[in-house]
């Protein structure tokens, strides 16, 4: 009897086991098939171009329509994005489901592999977009949007930056400006300090602050601690110095690893940053403080009472930190920024090679802003153009590093088309611009929409910059970026080891760029192609 029961149970268990095996196999089978299934519609989706593309983004959609959006945005940004999308939801009757995550790349990768991507993802940098486009995961926006409108409302450089192999895959919005030196206007007035315009002036001004021994007694506040990403504020410094001094072409070569890390120009940029950190008296506590101070805490020094440092270099997000920490301070009056100064290199003017390169690299770009007739009036009205003519410029090119979020589509349907078209409109973007923390790249968004003087000034600097590049780290393979972060920390600890640090980075680069090349086939090549015309030339080059 006992034996019989045993046997029965055994048979049952064996059956259950078999079933579970089959189930696992079945699941993995589905998993294996779906990526290909997800990849193929790229070809089929192009069958119906232009039909709904021209339709108004606010036309009513079928009941129950929805789009799912994945982005890196947090609480405040999410609220603003919801507000931006609200009119679209009201008028189309569709719903937007928003997921904000800091872990966007990991989640996106997993979901793409599972054959279940979101409808829309808002990516933080173009490197990822290029990889996804090359892997045929993205749907072309050129068939979803009315390209005439896009070309009219966005400058060529931004359209080019969102284009891979001749197809538009991304719309840029929410640009970030990382070329700002924050200061306290009150202390400048009290001490009779002038805003420096060139790097040499910046250094002599810093020396003056040290010798003046007024309040604040230190010229600089620097903090590079940021948990696992520690070091990035220092890499921003180096990228900004490098771009300002050596121009866009060499910057692109650096970012794409066409020049080695041991290049004397790269070393020079590190050393110039080192001047700020290691000159005694420049940073309170020197490199030790910079290493152990959180990047957010470092922004407070010029604005606390009494102020502890005169200046702080960082991006436009600093405004959020300052207003949160010191709610009584008024933007533009109690805290303000001036653009990162120009750098005259010993071999000649830094500005002019950059300027000439922008002109030769993309002859149309310089003219396009003003050349597109319907936009001309609006563009000139919205953006007071730069004063310098590229040809005549001598070391007065304002180089801007920064970033922007990219709207990419993974599916192509009526709701997605309507949604992307809507996001690209100046009306939609003005909603967020007014709420703050958003710099629009749409030329029809009025500068008057910005909530305060600083946001307006930042937008103006960003849109009128003659030389714009994405932050160097964001354009490099992630392994390279992480190694660079670690490298600057090492440099801050031991500045005399710079040569060996750069040799190590060059070794990392050899493998990091090789990996990306094999993973994303021609990723590097196409990156080079799209990056070069990045330069935003909206200055009055030559009026037609």
């Amino acid at each position: 009897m006992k034996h019989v029961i045993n046997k029965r149970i055994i048979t049952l268990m064996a059956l259950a086991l078999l079933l579970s095996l089959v189930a696992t196999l079945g699941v993995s089978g589905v998993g294996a098939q779906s990526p290909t299934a997800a990849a193929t519609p790229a070809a089929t989706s192009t069958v119906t171009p232009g039909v709904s593309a021209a339709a108004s983004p606010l036309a009513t959609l079928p009941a129950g329509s929805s789009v799912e959006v994945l982005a890196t945005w947090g609480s405040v940004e999410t609220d603003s994005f919801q507000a931006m999308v609200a009119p679209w939801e009201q008028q189309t009757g569709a719903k937007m489901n928003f997921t904000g995550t800091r872990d966007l790349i990991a989640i996106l990768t997993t979901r793409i592999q599972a054959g279940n991507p979101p409808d829309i993802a808002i990516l933080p940098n173009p490197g990822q977009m290029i990889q996804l486009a090359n892997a045929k995961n993205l749907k072309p926006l050129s068939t979803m949007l009315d390209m005439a409108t896009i070309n009219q409302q966005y400058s060529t450089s931004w359209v080019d930056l969102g284009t891979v192999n001749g197809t538009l895959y991304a719309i840029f919005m929410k640009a970030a400006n990382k070329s700002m030196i924050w200061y306290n206007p009150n202390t400048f007035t009290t001490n009779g300090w002038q805003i420096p315009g060139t790097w040499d002036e910046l250094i002599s001004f810093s020396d003056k602050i040290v010798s003046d021994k007024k309040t604040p007694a230190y010229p600089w506040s620097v903090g590079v601690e940021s948990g696992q990403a520690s070091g990035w504020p220092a890499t921003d410094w180096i990228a900004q110095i490098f771009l300002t001094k050596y121009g866009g072409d060499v910057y692109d070569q650096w970012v794409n690893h066409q020049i080695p890390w041991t290049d004397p120009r790269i070393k020079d940029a590190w050393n110039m940053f080192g001047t700020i950190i290691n000159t005694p008296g420049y940073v309170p506590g020197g490199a030790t403080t910079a290493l152990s101070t959180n990047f957010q805490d470092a922004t407070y020094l010029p604005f606390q009472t009494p102020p502890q440092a005169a200046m702080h270099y960082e991006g436009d997000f600093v405004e959020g930190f300052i207003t949160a920490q010191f709610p009584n301070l008024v933007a533009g009056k109690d805290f303000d920024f001036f653009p990162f100064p120009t750098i005259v290199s010993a071999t000649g003017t830094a500005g002019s090679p950059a300027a000439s390169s922008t002109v030769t690299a993309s002859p149309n770009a310089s003219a396009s802003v003003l050349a597109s007739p319907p936009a001309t009036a609006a563009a000139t009205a919205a953006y007071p153009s730069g004063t310098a003519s590229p040809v005549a410029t001598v070391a007065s090119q304002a180089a801007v590093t920064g970033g922007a979020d990219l709207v990419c589509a993974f599916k192509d349907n009526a709701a997605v088309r309507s949604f992307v078209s809507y996001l690209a409109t100046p009306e939609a973007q003005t909603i967020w611009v007014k709420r703050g923390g958003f710099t629009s790249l749409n030329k029809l968004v009025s500068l008057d929409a910005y909530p305060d003087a600083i946001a307006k000034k930042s937008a103006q600097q960003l849109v009128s910059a003659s030389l714009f590049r994405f932050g160097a780290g964001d354009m490099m393979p992630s392994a390279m970026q992480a190694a660079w972060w670690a490298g600057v920390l090492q440099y801050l600890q031991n500045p005399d080891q710079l040569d060996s640090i750069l040799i190590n980075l060059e070794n990392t680069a050899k493998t990091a760029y090789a990996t990306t090349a094999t993973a994303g086939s021609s990723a590097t090549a196409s990156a080079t192609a799209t990056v070069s015309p990045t330069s935003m030339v909206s200055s009055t080059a030559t009026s037609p």
Partner: protein
Amino acid sequence: MEVKGIPKMAENTRPRPVRGGGRAAWLWLLPALFFISIYLIYPAVDTFRLSLMNANSTVLVGWDNYKFIFTDKIMQNALLNNVLWIVLFTLLSVGLGLLFAVLAGRVRYEAAAKAMIFIPMAISFVAAAVIWRFVYTYRPPGFEQIGLVNAITGSFGLPPVSWLTQQVIPYLNSALPAPLHANNIAVILVGVWMWTGFAMVVLSAGLKGIPSEVLEAARVDGANEFQIFRRIILPLVSPTIAVVATTLVIQSLKIFDIVWVMTAGNYGTDVIATLMYKYMFIYQDFGKSGALAVILLAAIIPIMLISIRRFRSQEEIR
């Protein structure tokens, strides 16, 4: 190694299974074996396979990843750091744990005293690391010190120390060779703070197991308290100490959370596990992170075997 070892040991101690029941026994074992092979053996073998391949697992590179780990400066530094963790963390945790266990056993408010020491164990690693980041906070000289340690040392007129980034030993201004860096030790002390409670509780239980007649006899014979501790208590709790030490050695080999939250492995505080994470999720180099995982496993297995063997020999005594 592990797979081979277990049945052999089973032969030694267990009675031989009744013949004829063999097939049924295997059937009973099947579900467990099935899950172990899916969740343990397959990943281990696959990790080893990946460790012999390049970053994106397309080309076989042989032992290159292992060569890299033992020649690269950052990797070597991480391995040395792990050695420091094993030595310092284990010695301090066990030593302090024993000290507290002995002392707490002699006071009336024993439970409260032990609870105080044990509380850090109940806090998550990440929370503990965050707390200690505040404790170690550094502000430049002349600024108000908001970190506890620097505030205390500052009140004695000592200059502030950047405990988590500084490698030179504070106040001496001289650097000791590789793993003996100030920031490494500062991070290890956080681990000690967390795990001393564990060592204390287990050792305290071991101490309670010592028959009181033995101690009384010693006292009657005129032994002083130190002699009692040295000649009686220590030998009698040594098996417990060995168990605790083994656990802590394994713990220090696997250490990740504390280092990750406090320094993220920067400033020369990387350990094997943080580098494994970095190579996996940041550098996306499956080969090197796989090799690190294999090395970590290889380092832990002998310790596990030793503790299993000791456990068995104790079982036999009983």
